[in-house]
């Protein structure tokens, strides 16, 4: 499979305190298309920082990140926003749906930013929400949905733009066991059937069990990288 993400010698140093904090130390990581990867490790090991850098949300202090051959480390803010829109789907720990939009509108929103026409938007949103077993909740606002349901809408939103890969930062942290199982099964199914690439950050054993590849971080460095 083709290389999708290539992170070379990534370091991230925060200077917000008197003593600089080294969040990532010379990390090298390659992700191929269709992988179902979990980045694991204890709190503060640099999982979220790595995910943010891979997703173009944050800049590394040194090193290079290439996505499908495009170097995003030197991209300007406005180009990076556009790049994220076209290439990367995000799922957040706290769901972060737009509270004033319904489930369907939340999924449509990304496609609206991509200037897709109304018919295409509506059809794809319905199709994705159906896939997420949310067909009966199309017109519900986030406040009317459970945590698990909101996270399924968030996954549908992440997939709406047909991104090259989906980054999910602790997607199951706020979910109960049943919702976690359900969500992971759905994402694994999409990964399997559509060859969609997922990268999680997690310290949830259930996610680790489902992942095909486990990248373990400790103190900002990769200490193991196991494919199963």
């Amino acid at each position, binding site marked *: 499979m083709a290389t999708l993400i290539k992170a070379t010698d990534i370091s991230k140093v925060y200077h917000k305190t008197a003593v600089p904090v080294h969040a990532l130390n010379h990390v090298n990581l390659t992700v191929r298309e269709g992988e179902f990867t979990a980045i694991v490790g204890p709190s503060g090991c640099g999982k979220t920082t790595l995910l943010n850098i891979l997703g173009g949300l944050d800049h590394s202090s040194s090193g290079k990140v290439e996505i499908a051959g495009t170097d995003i480390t030197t991209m300007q803010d406005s180009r990076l*926003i556009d790049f994220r829109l076209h290439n990367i789907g995000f799922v957040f720990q706290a769901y972060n749906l737009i*509270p*004033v939009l319904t489930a369907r509108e939340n999924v449509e929103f990304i496609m609206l930013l991509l200037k897709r026409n109304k018919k295409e938007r509506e059809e794809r949103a319905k199709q994705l929400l159906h896939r997420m077993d949310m067909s009966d909740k199309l017109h519900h606002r986030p406040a009317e949905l459970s945590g698990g349901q909101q996270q399924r809408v968030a996954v549908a939103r992440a997939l709406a733009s047909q991104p090259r890969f989906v980054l999910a930062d602790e997607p199951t942290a706020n979910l109960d066991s049943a919702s976690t199982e359900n969500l992971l099964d759905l994402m694994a199914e999409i990964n399997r059937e559509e060859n969609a690439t997922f990268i999680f950050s997690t310290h949830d054993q259930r996610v680790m069990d489902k992942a095909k590849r486990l990248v373990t971080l400790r103190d900002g460095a990769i200490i193991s990288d196991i494919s199963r």
Partner: protein
Amino acid sequence: MLVIIAWRNVWRNKARSGVVIGSIVIGIWALSFGGGFMKSFLASYIQSSILHETSNGQIHHPEFSKDQDIKFSIANPEEIIGFLKMEKRVRKFCMRSLVNGMISSSRQATGVRIVGVDADQEAGVTRLDSLISQGQYFSDVSHPALLGEKLRDKLKVKPGAKVILTFQDINGMITAARFRVVGILHSSSLAINETSVFVLKSDINQLLGIPGAVHEIAYTTIPETDDQDLARSASLKFKNVKVESWQQLSPVLTFMQQWMGASLEILIVIIMAALAFGIVNTMLMAVLERVRELGVLMALGMKRSRVFVMIMTETIFLSIAGGPLGLLIGYATISYLGRYGIDLSDYSQGLEAIGYSDILYPALLTSDYLQIMIGVVITAVIASVYPAWKAIQYDPVEAIHSL
């Protein structure tokens, strides 16, 4: 969808948005009422001045306004009267003889302007007859005279009393004649109330030795007449007289009119500035409450310019939501008070002293309402800039992880 998001966001916190919209409604109502009240104050003063003092226009000998010598009478009054009768914009006219002199009673004496009038013509133009508060409007007695209440008090006379008018005739001879006070005038006009005596033109002309002389022709016009244009066209026709509209005769009225227009604009700016601070405060709170959401939008791929437009749209919606209701209530208030008036009779003494009527009828033109609405829109746009700018300053990563 940006518009939908912005509109729904306005109603996310109904109580807070309700307070802002309510303050905008009250602000616009206050603006409409304040503007209408101020305009009615001026309109009352201008109408009173036009009716009782300047009329819509006056015609004099070109030298009369400089010297006011009785020798400067209008050379061809018949020709001018013929023109005024033919001119469709002219409603009524009257001819006057004017001379400065002295009035004395058995108790007091003071300088006055003696105005010789034709009783019927004058009543048609200045409605002088409607101002009689005591006695009657000219009568068959020999040499009748009308004077204002203040002058009456000064001279300590009442209807039936005799007064002596002293002045110079056409030959420069001091002439004194006895007149009988037949009526007392009640007016908010200082000129009528205190400094003028009205007598019959025929009586005074005879005493001046200039029978048939006319020093002043005053005319009124039909509503919506451009008085300055009429004065210009009459001036072109009659080169040997000076035709002036009320704006030229009383520049202070023109100034007051301009000043009132500026005052309304200042009032709009003050009220809108107060509203703008309220709107900015509310929107800043809304932005601060939604830092994470804004971060997510930017993380997902929404450009900062779009976030800026979204917050601006939201602010504009919030600002103009109360506009139509405020204008409607303002319009209803002005319409009602414009019909039934605001009774300021409790303050009438003070108002009359400065020439105002004690009942005011507020009125606003369509253009005034439009000006207010434009003011609201401009305020909305200005008030939206800072919250929108603030919203795009966040770093998506920090915003997403904010509480």
